[in-house]
């Protein structure tokens, strides 16, 4: 095993924007997300010296912890990182505080306001606050109301609220939640998080498209035959059955993560690189997106659920056998679907989306398959020339790849496909930050570019409304096909493309 040396010339070159003195208040601080993602991301920002010295983290939950208990629990969760950076933790943990708060209790909010004023004095955080609602989704609206009623969102410049996914359960509930949130705070204060947007490679879709002249001219219906977006997980439902049973893959992955990737892949070029310009374009493309068959949505969507599988040595249980899952559950753990985008750029180009749990590989990618050359002049080694493909690998092995035909060596003129690849590892060799690191920094900076705006969220829900209604009202029309764990989903999903004479890319 070789140790990767850091590039000493790279240190300190990034001109990071400066986060103002700030207190980040995490509601749901006793939950998983806080110790698995949020506090580690904040600690990483601290280690990268991107947090100001005047910062504080105030954990809030119902449990009656003290500051010391909170520090100790966060310390236990970060034990490995702390072992490597004990002095950094020593300094960072000085800024960790805890306040028992029930968002439904008005007097708790009064006490919270007083505690924040105390922290402002103690840590010189100057009244700048980012409230992070890492609570159960049913409390997003009431949480915002409680914060607003306590006057904690009154200063639009100094207070922001970050809301975790899922933002609503469907179009109607998302609209309703938007109304509540917007009654409590200005849109500029609201940060709806989708951690996929924090991934370097997702952001790289924008750079690939709009910083290069070679891609954009061919990024349209004239050259692209179809687009496949895949987010595959090897894990099962694990300990999230309580949430997942009421959600399923459509709500958990497609409506947010895959739809965001779809929007970035298909959007028009923004006039400039700022939050509103980018979010305008994303909202527009989502408003133009349609299920391939809205009248008969069961014809353009396949749902699946993993059954047992694996090997004799490592058997994997089926979804219905997972702890906390209803033995007769019809919750989908796999979704594949076909969409169209009705605009000048994409008219007639099918977009195929798929996501699933317990698939053979963990990967996310966007595959743009180009049209065939109009005339085949050469014999192809594989019988027919392989269409050109551009593959944007979002995870793992982040990078991009272009497949094209070249002359196979020899006296004849046979063609065969080859790959030309770019790998983040080979070119940069630096691990990219966890998505939450980037997103938390952006929220504290007040930069909403990588957060979803109200109209985007609503457009995303509206897109899937025919499916959600069908599942609700006539689930037998959209049955859940079982698929063996560690396979690429049900056969019906293959037919979805097979009917178009295509097949899923086998990564």
């Amino acid at each position, binding site marked *: 095993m070789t140790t990767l040396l850091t*590039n*000493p*010339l*790279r240190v300190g*070159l990034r001109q990071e924007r400066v986060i103002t003195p700030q207190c980040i208040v995490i509601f749901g601080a006793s939950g998983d997300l806080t110790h698995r993602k949020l506090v580690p991301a904040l600690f990483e920002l601290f280690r990268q010296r991107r947090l100001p010295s005047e910062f504080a983290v105030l954990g809030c939950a119902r449990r009656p912890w003290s500051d010391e208990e909170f520090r100790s629990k966060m310390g236990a969760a970060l034990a490995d990182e702390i072992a490597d950076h004990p002095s950094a933790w020593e300094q960072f943990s000085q800024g960790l505080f805890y306040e028992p708060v029930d968002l439904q209790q008005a007097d708790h909010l009064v006490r919270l306001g007083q505690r924040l004023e105390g922290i402002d004095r103690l840590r010189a955080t100057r009244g700048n606050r980012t409230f992070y609602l890492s609570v159960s989704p049913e409390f997003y609206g009431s949480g915002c109301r409680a914060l607003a009623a306590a006057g904690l969102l009154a200063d639009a410049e100094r207070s922001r609220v970050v809301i975790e996914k899922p933002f609503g359960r469907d179009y109607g509930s998302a609209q309703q939640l938007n109304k509540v949130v917007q009654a409590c705070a200005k849109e500029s204060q609201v940060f709806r998080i989708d951690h996929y947007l924090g991934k370097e490679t997702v952001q790289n879709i924008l750079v690939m498209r709009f910083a290069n002249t070679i891609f954009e001219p061919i990024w349209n219906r004239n050259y692209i035959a179809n687009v496949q977006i895949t987010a595959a997980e090897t894990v099962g439902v694990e300990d999230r059955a309580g949430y997942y049973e009421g959600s399923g893959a459509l709500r958990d992955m497609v409506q947010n993560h895959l739809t965001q990737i779809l929007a970035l892949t298909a959007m028009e070029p923004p006039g400039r690189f700022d939050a509103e310009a980018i979010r305008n374009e994303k909202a527009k493309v989502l408003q133009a997106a349609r299920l391939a068959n809205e009248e008969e949505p069961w014809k353009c969507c396949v749902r699946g659920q993993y059954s047992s599988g694996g090997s004799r040595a490592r058997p994997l249980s089926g979804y219905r056998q997972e702890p906390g899952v209803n033995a007769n559950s019809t919750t989908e753990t796999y979704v594949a679907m076909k969409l169209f985008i009705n605009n000048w750029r994409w008219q007639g180009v099918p977009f195929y989306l798929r996501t699933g749990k317990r698939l053979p590989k963990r990967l996310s990618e966007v595959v743009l398959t180009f049209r065939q050359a109009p005339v085949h002049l050469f014999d192809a080694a594989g019988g027919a020339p392989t269409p050109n493909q551009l593959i944007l690998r979002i995870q793992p092995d982040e990078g991009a790849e272009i497949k094209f035909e070249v002359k196979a060596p020899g006296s004849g003129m046979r063609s065969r496909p080859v790959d030309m690849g770019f790998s983040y590892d080979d*070119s*940069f060799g630096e691990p990219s930050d966890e998505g939450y690191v980037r997103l938390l920094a952006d929220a504290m900076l007040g930069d909403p570019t990588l957060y979803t705006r109200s109209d985007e969220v609503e457009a995303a829900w509206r897109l899937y409304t025919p499916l959600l209604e069908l599942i609700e009202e006539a689930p037998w029309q959209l049955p859940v096909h079982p698929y063996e764990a560690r396979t690429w989903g049900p056969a019906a999903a293959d037919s979805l493309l097979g009917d178009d004479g295509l097949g899923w890319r086998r990564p």
Partner: protein
Amino acid sequence: MSTQLTLQAPLDVPPAEVYPYLDRLWDHGLEGSTGAATFTLLIWEPSWLEQQMVRIGRIDGPIRGLERNDLLEAARLITADCDLPFSTAPMDPRLAWKVGQLAGQHEAQDLRGQFVPNAISVHTPRRLITLVPTLDAGRPLETMVAAYCPLPDEGGAGAACGDAIVLRGGMEALRQGLPLIQPLIGDDLPCWVWWNSSLDEPPEMLEALAPPPRRLVIDTSLGHPARCLDVLVARIEAGQAVNDLNWLRLRSWRESLAMVFDPPSRRDALAHVVQLDIDVEGDHPVKGLLLTAWMADRLGWHLIDSSTTEEPGGINAEFQRTDGTTVRFRQMPVPVGVPKAHPGAIVGLRLICEPPDRPPLCVILCSESGGCMRLESGGMAAMELVEEVVPLPEENEEMEMARLLGGGHDTTNPLLAASAPLAATILPR
């Protein structure tokens, strides 16, 4: 760059009336606006070259104090008349002095301090104070005051406004006007001081305008090299937040060099550098030395010795790597036909690494505006060659300044803080 005029025509106000006038302006004239809670920007803006070129009729007025292309073009053309080398940068203070010897009596309106570049105005400075010395050393002090509101590109102007104050006069009059400034700055907002001129100018003015904790912005390409580095180092050592536009203009060189060593397969070579050569325009060495010092600091080299070269204008130095191996350094001035605006721009860089068990690696970075023939010649046939072109940022001083203001940098960049003292040590005295 498009510029914005102030909201109202600047009003001549007697010096003693400036502060009361501002009070009235904010109390009555700008009701409904509390003013932007941002920062004060104090600018020393002599614009000697622009004033002299207008005086001799080589460019038209008005005098604005902003970097302008016609001024740079005219300055490049006039170097021969001034008996200066073609490689003399337009902003070289010696050129302004030489132009000052030429005859001419053209006059033009002086609008310095009354234009706010868009790049800066988007950061809504609460107060802009510009000191504009005139060629006429005996001119009395004039003070002008105006309010301004930045107009966002897409309308929807906010209520946050600022004011602009101009102090104009001969040097002596400006010295006498210095006591006016402190009450205008106040303590409640951060204050940036932009010394937009040569560091060879009278030191007492710099001392008076830029005491800590004001954040100082200088340009070490303007002035005698030793003086430039000494000022920079002294301020850093005093703990003052100081930014150097000359250092900021090195950004693309530092980024390009780092980029060469981003692929993990090349990282190891950085520990085996044996030679570094840098070519610079003209005879101002500071920029090249800052780049060298940055590399030496990042790679842990220890300076052994430095000297001037036999050929005029060059610098030789020897460093010792952490493993004791010697690194040879040479910086040479090279003539160029069209010099960049500021003295000492880097033309090219060559880095030779000799990692064990691998062929030597030669990295050549070349400015996109010129060739690197000297660096590309000789003895590299057996080496792995990496050549990159370093892009020239299309940014002028105002945009660099705006970047600083936007970044909110209230401390000295640690890389600059580490590099400047070493650069000062490399410079042979």
